[in-house]
């Protein structure tokens, strides 16, 4: 019985740790605080009855993590966008010119111009691979609303990327 629970927690840790840290780091703009929040999230999971979580594990983890992160943020009242140093991108790419770095982050830059709620659902959808329903439970938005936000965000991105590539072509 105890064994089953520990296996469950270790499996949850393996599966969601990375996603949760990135998600919390995005909310908080700080990696170390994000790690603390995620650690606390899993410690709370240890205290939880697996039966009560059921097959809502992802929702449970992201909701708790999100609430904790918002609490921390409220307390510290600091909100700054994630800097490159805080969340390094995978640097398997060859080190090259400045222009390269610019193109690299262009999508991210456009993303930064989106409303915060759109960015959040994009992240939950495309980084954490959660379904509309799971996202809806985490963010307390309706499923329809989640769908609308994602659709709108993608539309904006599409438009921005098209204009950008057109501009580049002219240059």
């Amino acid at each position, binding site marked *: 019985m105890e064994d089953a629970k520990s296996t469950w927690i270790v499996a949850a840790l393996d599966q969601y740790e990375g996603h949760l840290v990135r998600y919390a780091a995005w909310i908080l703009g700080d990696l170390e605080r994000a790690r603390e929040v995620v650690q606390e999230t899993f410690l709370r999971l240890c205290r939880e009855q697996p039966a009560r979580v059921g097959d809502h594990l992802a929702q449970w983890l992201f909701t708790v993590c999100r609430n904790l992160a918002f609490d921390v943020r409220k307390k510290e009242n600091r909100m700054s966008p994630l800097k490159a140093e805080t969340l390094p991108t995978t640097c*398997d790419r060859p080190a090259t010119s400045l222009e390269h770095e610019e193109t690299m982050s262009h999508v991210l830059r456009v993303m930064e111009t989106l409303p915060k709620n759109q960015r959040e659902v994009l992240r939950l959808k495309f980084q954490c691979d959660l379904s509309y329903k799971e996202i809806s439970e985490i963010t307390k938005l309706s499923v329809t609303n989640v769908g609308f936000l994602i659709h709108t965000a993608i539309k904006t991105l599409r438009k921005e990327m098209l204009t950008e590539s057109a501009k580049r072509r002219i240059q």
Partner: protein
Amino acid sequence: MNITPDDPKWTAYVLGELNEAERAQVEQELESSALAREVVEEIRLATSMLKREFAKEQTVGLAAAQRGVIRAKAEPTHVRPIFRWAAVAGSVAAGLFVVASLSIPSLLRSRQAAVETTAALAPPVDGTRTTPSESDRDLKKQRTVFNRQKLEAEIQQAQSREQLLPQGQQGQQGQQGQQAAAPSANALEALQRQEGARFAMKSLAADERAPSGVFPTAPTALADRLDRRQLNTESYDYISDNPFIRVAQDPLATFSIDVDTASYANIRRFLTNNQTPPKDSVRIEEMINYFTYDYPSPTGRHPVAAYTEVASAPWQPDHRLVRIGIKAKEIDTAKRPPSNLVFLIDVSGSMATPEKLPMLKNAMKLMVDKLGEGDHVAIVTYAGASGVHLRSTSGDRKDVINAAIENLNSGGSTNGGAGIVLAYDTATSNFIRGGTNRVILATDGDFNVGVTNQGDLTRLIDEKAKSGVFLSVLGFGMGNYKDSTLEKLADKGNGNYAYIDTINEARKVLVEEMMGTLLTVAKDVKIQVEFNPAMVNAYRLIGYENRALRHEDFNDDRKDAGDMGAGQTVTALFEVVPRGVEIQTGSVDSLRYQQLEKSARRDASGEMLNVRIRYKQPDSDASQSVETPVVDRGTAYGNASVDFRFAAAVASFGMILRESPYKGQSTLDAVIDMAERSRGADRNGYRDEFIQLVRKARLLRGNQ
């Protein structure tokens, strides 16, 4: 029907968020509306771009200490981890034992698996033992990055852990541990051999070929190279540029034609992601042949004809560049014979991402549109188990076929071997005499269950090819993509091979080209070029490095070579050093005794070279040949045809990417200039895209 692109249902459809009824509704609209299809395609592109962007963020997890606290909390007893450790350490060793006997792709994968297994080891929670700090975290970050030292370190760790086992465990585990020690050494040796084979060959002079079966030992640069290349699981065979060969030494160049274009799409993928393509992923002949050139359709009794042109080489003006274009007879597609197609689709978990299975499904539907009632389509899937997903179905029952396509879902691991057998069986049992019989394999190349040994797999395909069923291979996705495996499979299966990176590419290959290659008009097409020593000092075939045939194989009808479909073109470039001009690159020592008298006889002809094509009719086992002699009229590069100049620009770009010793005065600026002046009609915008890619490369590496 009114299509509202603003409706969130399109996005929901792409993301698989609709219920059955809604999905059916959307699909109906997709059938009937081009606008709807465009909207969905755009959303797909945007979503895959987003996924890529998010995937670039590095996985940062908790600190090891934080994980330790959680695990301690989760696990009330502290003795357990020791047992678990022992078991896992044992399995790491056992895993390595297997590694030692596997082929390259599985080897790469297993190495990674071994690292990952170790990475999953629990750190100590009771403080009675020490592990390297943060080791599990670090390893996790390295998942896609393997280096040999790491494996060595892992093995040592695994072994030292076993030595730490409590007495009671020693008896049981000790035995396993001893077994493990020797295989580990074997595994390392095997690794070294493989890596030696793949990378150390670079240290050989460009004109030396390593004798097959003899692996040079890895030089000290190996470790450095491994680090620098940051190996992920994409694998490419090492390619050495064809050297200049003196005509006096060997007047014949013999090679198999090849209509693959996968390398170009792959290069495009790297450049689009702002990465310089690995040198060995650049195959110049595939780049040149990605583009269409205007050769007239042969009218004589032969289904293939050669067209040639000679002008100066833009990167080495005192050298001549010879373009040889082979064109297969065009056949009106309305009159094409019926086809029997069996799709063999990899539905393993790794195919789930939008740029793989979902894109393939869309492309298949486009292709189904073009099928007639005489055509038959079947679908075989493979993952953990393989099965017939759609029995061979007539092309006029488009609803049934489309529904089956839509029902393809991914999940499970891959057993390519069993799937291939099943697909060939399906194809042979529905064989259409006089028609086109083809297995189309779509995969990201991860054959990880069953017949995974590359040798076994290619032998299997080789044997199946004799049944008259051809094999086309479509490679999908990135990161997991086994370039060399797939190409070998296609070669053995008398087929072609394409890398699919965008829906446009899928359409080009499946709809435009596959419907062309569906009809093979000549098979086992081989080219032999004979140079006239009176005119030519030395020559070099650009690209086609892994297409070289032995001269005696040219006339050996049992030797397999490439096939040509109706309307297909193949282009090859030779760089020729005219008589009287010395070879600059110094790759060939001058010969002391071989003088050129014997050639004087043909001098009068003024011919530079002679192109001989050998081919078989699709239903014949005996070959025929066509000859085309070529005279050099001294044309300057600037006066050559548009197609000639464009092909030269592509070759020049390829040589720069390959850092070829023969690139001469090639620069990215010059390539852009040449390509811009040779765009021609460029109906599909392919040449324009090429120019964009060269610009991208210039941004990435500066002009050189």
